[in-house]
């Protein structure tokens, strides 16, 4: 009798708990460094939950350097997040480690057709797509007009090319003693500089590295010569963008290539420099492309329901959400065809922040994530970085450094 009663209450209890358990079906997505936009993501989560009854969606935001570890640790523990936002280098690295699911198998072709082709290419490796493109941001050029004037340069007639900027950098340094320009050349970013200048990285079959031609050597040599003559600040060669921004903020740098999202921060950090700043679109070189850093959502291996996870990634990056996010940030751009064509991106105000967004929008049509998808990209990029630094810091000639990288790449491509 007792057993029968227990069974009855047990079954009744289970039935009562079942809907509650279903309502608690958890999903999680992770973003990179977007805590500032909590006011965007919290309502986004609510909308998803409303549209997907039974799902409890969790949003986690992490610093960029913690994301890959989060994915790998999640896979190892058997509970990875469902959709993870990362940049193309991070996604390609994890894809090559077998940590991500190919999305071609999980989403319909018509869904993939909503995205710009060039954005999809940045997250494809060996014919498989590993990231659904989210937002992109391209860079602009900011000029400190006070410094330009000190150097006798006309802020109304700023250079439109990288060689022109380098020329102004020399004039500024020669005439004022202040550094004119601080290019970020000491890492794998120089692969992007090559592409923007119209110089290829791989041969047509993508089987051999070809970036040691005389034209590649000459371009690198130009930067090395300018560094040697102290036209570029040593701090930036060593500490990268952080040091460049620090110098610009302190009024110690005439020209900086920077993301438009930094303009509102500059306004807070140094109102004086912000007021003196004039912005312009990033110069377009012979490559007819400019670097557009793009983030995308990837689906880790081992998620509970791969199709549901991919659908979440598609929802997070749909036209409506991408457009809304760009309007919230005011400085980033969508990667879906429809959202990118929205008139919003061609309208704006007159202050530096709005001008920065408009300047970025002007080159966005040429924006591509110029990360190079190669096997073992982490090792190949490290070889590139080490050798390039050896050239910049006088350990090797430009030719020797590029030759050494090409040898290593070709043994491993």
């Amino acid at each position, binding site marked *: 009798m007792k057993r029968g009663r227990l069974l009855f209450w047990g079954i009744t209890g289970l039935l009562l708990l079942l809907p509650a358990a279903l309502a608690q079906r958890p999903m999680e997505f992770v973003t990179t*460094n977007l*805590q500032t936009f909590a006011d965007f993501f919290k309502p986004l989560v609510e909308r998803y939950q409303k549209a997907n009854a039974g799902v409890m969606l969790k949003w986690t*935001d992490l*610093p960029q350097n913690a994301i890959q570890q989060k994915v*790998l640790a999640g896979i190892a523990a058997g509970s990875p997040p469902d959709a993870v936002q990362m940049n193309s280098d991070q996604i390609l*690295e994890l894809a*090559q*480690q*077998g940590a991500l699911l190919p999305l071609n198998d999980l989403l319909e072709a018509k869904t993939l057709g909503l995205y710009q082709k060039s954005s999809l290419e940045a997250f494809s490796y060996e014919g498989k797509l590993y990231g659904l493109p989210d937002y992109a941001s391209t860079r602009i050029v900011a000029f400190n007009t006070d410094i330009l004037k000190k150097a006798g340069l006309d802020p109304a007639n700023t250079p439109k090319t990288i060689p022109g900027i380098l020329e102004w950098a020399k004039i500024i340094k020669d005439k004022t003693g202040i*550094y004119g320009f601080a290019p970020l050349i*000491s890492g794998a970013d120089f692969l992007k500089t090559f592409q923007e200048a119209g110089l290829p990285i791989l041969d047509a079959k993508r089987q051999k590295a070809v970036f040691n031609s005389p034209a590649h050597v000459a371009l690198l040599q130009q930067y090395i010569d300018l560094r040697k003559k102290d036209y570029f*600040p*040593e*701090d930036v*060669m*060593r*500490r990268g963008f*952080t*040091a460049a921004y*620090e*110098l610009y*903020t*302190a009024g*110690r740098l005439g020209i900086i290539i920077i993301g438009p999202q930094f303009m509102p*921060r500059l306004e*807070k*950090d140094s109102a004086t420099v912000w007021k003196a700043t004039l912005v312009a679109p990033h110069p377009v070189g012979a490559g007819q492309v400019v670097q557009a850093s793009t983030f995308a959502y990837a689906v880790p291996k081992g998620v509970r329901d791969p199709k549901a996870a991919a659908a979440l990634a598609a929802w997070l990056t749909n036209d409506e959400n991408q457009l809304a996010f760009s309007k919230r940030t005011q400085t980033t751009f969508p990667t879906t065809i429809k959202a990118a064509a929205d008139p919003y991106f061609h309208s704006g105000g007159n202050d530096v922040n709005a001008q920065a967004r408009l300047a970025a929008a002007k080159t966005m049509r040429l924006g591509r994530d110029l990360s190079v998808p190669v*096997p*073992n*990209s*982490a*090792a190949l990029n*490290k070889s590139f970085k*080490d050798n390039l*630094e*050896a050239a910049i*810091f*006088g*350990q090797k000639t430009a030719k020797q450094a590029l*030759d*050494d990288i090409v*040898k*290593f790449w*070709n*043994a*491993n491509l």
Partner: protein
Amino acid sequence: MKPLLLTLSLLLAGAWAAPLPTVASSDVYQASAPAELLPPPRQASFSTGTLTLEGLSIQVLGNAPELSWAARDLNAETQTRLGLTLPLGEGGKTVRIGTLENPILAAEARAHNLTPDQTEGYALWVNAEGATVVGFDPLGAYRGIQTLRQLLTPTGFRFAQIRDWPQFPLRMAMIYLDKDSAAVNNVLIPLLAKYKFSHLLVMCDYVQWSSTSNLWNPSGATLAEAARIASLIREYGMEPIPLIELLGHARWLFYNNQNRDLWADPQAQTPYAYDPLNPRTYEVVLPILAEAVKVFKPKYLHIGHDEVANVNRFPATPEGLAAGLPKLFVDDTLRLYDYLKGLGVGTMIWHDVAFSQAYGDQIAPNLPKDIVVAYWNYSPAADYPALAAIHEQGFPVIGSSWFEAGNAQNMAQAGLKYGSAGMLQTRWSGYFGNLSLLGNQARQGMAYLSAASSFWNPAAAVPRDTTARYQEAWRPVRFSPVAGRLVDLSSLSTRTLKDSAGKDWIQRGPSTDLSALPTGVQRFGAYKFDISGAVMLKGSRSGVNDLPQRVTLELGAQASAIAFLQTSGFISSVPKDLVGSYTFTYTDGTSLQQFLEYGREIASWTDLGLSSLFFSPAWRGKTSDGLEVGLNTWVWVNPHPDKVIQSITFESSGGQANPALIGLSLLEGVPAEAP
């Protein structure tokens, strides 16, 4: 009937499988003394002959503790290498250890024209009558004994005459305190002493200070461990300098959601710098400094102060913005400097904010000139003129390097040129990363030794065997040979080493092959192999995807250990990637499988940046177009040496890094350094 057939077929299979040909060798394994001294001495000459250890004793001439530490270290060496301890004694052949204070030793050093005349300098001579080490001071004698240790060969101490002294008085290496401190630092500290470091910078962020029990991280070191390490450092002839990261990199101060009110950037996602305008900051920080001084009794304390604005905004509050970064930095530094000065301790800082191109001219001139500035630059460069710029502003400066080849040596040379006070070899393996020195951060440990070489003698070339020496610290090497058999793998070769037509090796053509590898019987490091071709297995990359997935090597022999000369055709970027395995099948039908993890037991022939304590560098060379390539030896210890190994099945996982076996040698004993 069926079981009988099975048994018969097994027996027949065993009978039919002809074992691979082998050749006996009395010294398949033979460790040798290092060919070069590290650091290279300033003046040294060598002659043929060795001072045997038979009847040799140690005579300590003086009462300074450094002299008895020297005797202790010398006996550790003879015990490890040859299983012998030298007794203390006076008569007969002796190793004499003393200083110039001893008139007899001083006179003899003069007679040999080797008189040391600088702090930590020493004279050393070894001949048939004995060995003598005479320090300019007791520390000099201690450093000299470290050289004598390296003169030990299988037959005794090499004859030599050496006069030596350090270039820099401060030769510092950075170590960490965490929960695994004892396991790593108990080996590391004697190793760093052996190669003549003078100071150790001890990362103390997560020490469990008694004044801040709310910040105790379970992975941090206890206060007792900090005190023990301070003593250990001194007993190995070095001085500790604690490093407590302050102002920036101060996450430890906010561990466990503590001190939320001290965040410099209240809007930040995670804390990073503290707010120097909040008086409570110093109520927390100063007692910690006082405790660190009490525990370490240091002459200097390093207070960090680097990368203050790298993570969050700094300054970020209206009050902070009104003051500006330079004033906040200067005021905070002066506050800590004054406090430490009151405790009789000097201050050390990183250079990058105080001397930045953005704010340096507003910060550095306002700092006391007796602050020691650690200039860091981790890129190998031909020159480091910033050392001169800091020195010219009147600050003592030390150059700080990291692990990339050429960084420490070039910076030491620049330091010499620009009058630097010393050098620091940093290590950045995580606050709780001590154990990573035995794993994926081993290369940072190996870099200690090349730095040691350049910090003592910047002009001399760095000996090339730093990897082997670092490995020896964890797995001491004995000089006794081990006999065994060299296996001829030629009948199983799937690829030749030379790829003249793009059809062999990894099918990338003659400029990307292993044709530089010498063939025949060769000794690479301590191991001999018979080299012909490669038993290369299948991988996912083009050019190697048509190779066999597995190959069985018939042995029919006993072995206590087996040395594998191996590599992979391509790199793997998958963490802990199991690229293949060896399955050892014994004649009794039992078997064992050993997996090969990329970066641990095996690495690609082009991936020379990888270092592991589990394999040893064997051969290094270049392809015809100059790409540096190499092979490593990995040793498997047989847990059943009494059983006959019928065969080894070599199998690939089929991923990016396809394994390739190039040499195989069976050992009758287990070499001391085998993992």
